[in-house]
């Protein structure tokens, strides 16, 4: 089967890839290419520039630099009449005595407001743990508002020797099973 397919490949090779070019395509190729490329210019442009430029620039050159847009006759002579000059407004100086009085008053009011609000907010946030609802605390913990890693927890119990055999695994297990989390939260 494989050799049969190899024969098909060999057969295909004889018939070629199946592509063809337009009739007489190769006949006048030299004339077309030379005419479209303007050899002297191509050489000069290449020597001026660092990298090679793509062909068909000659088509652009033949168009020249004219963009093809026109304006109505006399447009630029009449231009000044079309222009609308905005009216100038009176400039208010920051050094005028009246404005300075208002500025001083504004600054004093801002300082008063800043300290007053600070005192009001700090006195309202002093909430005792015992006054908080257990559900609220649990929600606060559950929603990831606090997170401790094991090192932070260990720092709280620095005086406890965790390496000693003070408690057996069974005792620790029984303790954890009977632990009332609400009580610990309220005590701390």
């Amino acid at each position, binding site marked *: 089967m494989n050799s049969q397919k190899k024969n098909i*490949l060999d057969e295909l090779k004889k018939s*070629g*890839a199946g*592509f063809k070019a337009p009739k007489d395509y190769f006949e006048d*190729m*030299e004339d077309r290419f030379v005419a479209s*490329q303007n050899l002297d210019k191509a050489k000069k442009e*290449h020597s001026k520039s660092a990298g090679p430029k793509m062909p068909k620039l000659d088509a652009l050159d033949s168009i020249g630099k004219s963009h093809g847009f026109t304006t109505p006759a006399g447009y630029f002579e009449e231009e000044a009449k079309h222009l609308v000059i905005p009216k100038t407004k009176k400039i208010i100086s920051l050094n005028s005595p009246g404005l300075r009085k208002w500025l001083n008053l504004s600054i004093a009011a801002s300082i008063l407001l800043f300290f007053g609000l600070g005192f009001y907010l700090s006195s309202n946030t002093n909430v005792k743990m015992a006054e908080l609802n257990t559900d609220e605390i649990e929600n606060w913990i559950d929603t990831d508002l606090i997170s401790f890693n094991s090192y932070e927890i260990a720092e709280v119990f620095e005086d406890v020797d965790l390496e000693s055999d003070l408690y057996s695994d069974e005792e620790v297990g029984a303790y954890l099973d009977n632990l009332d989390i609400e009580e610990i939260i309220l005590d701390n």
Partner: protein
Amino acid sequence: MLEEEVLIERLKDPLTREASYRLLISTHKQRLYWHIRKIVLNHENADDVLQNTFIKVFRHIDGFKGESKLYSWMFRIATNESISFLKKEAKHLRVDMKTLQEQRVDNLKADVYFDGDEIQLKLQKAIISLPQKQQLVFNMKYFDDLKYEEISEILDTSVGALKASYHHARKKIELFLLNT
């Protein structure tokens, strides 16, 4: 035919430039065209890429050091131009190269300059299923009958690697034709 060194010297001389350029085109136009055509698949694009190739050859002839044969150097330029063209086209159409080549092979069915039958179309599909470099190696060896030494100069790859590459390409194409 003129010796390569003489032709290159004449291409650099303003007095003999145009005649030498014409000679260069007439000598290499067919082989370069069919090489490009098998990469870009479409005649109009092949014509554009061929013109770009000759322009680049002409503009850079001063930098040609004669380390390889002139036609190998021209084939390399043609290959680079063809692949650059496909990359630009893929970028323009916002598709990857594989998709672009698949679209181009599909377009062959309606192409007036493609008279291949179903099996030749299938062969083109098999070729584009190969990695880019294997496609080039396969086309140059299978269709153009270039020697491995010549392909080595064009693709700057060792003869051993090319032999392996062509062997793999041929196997994959046989499998493709067998299984589809």
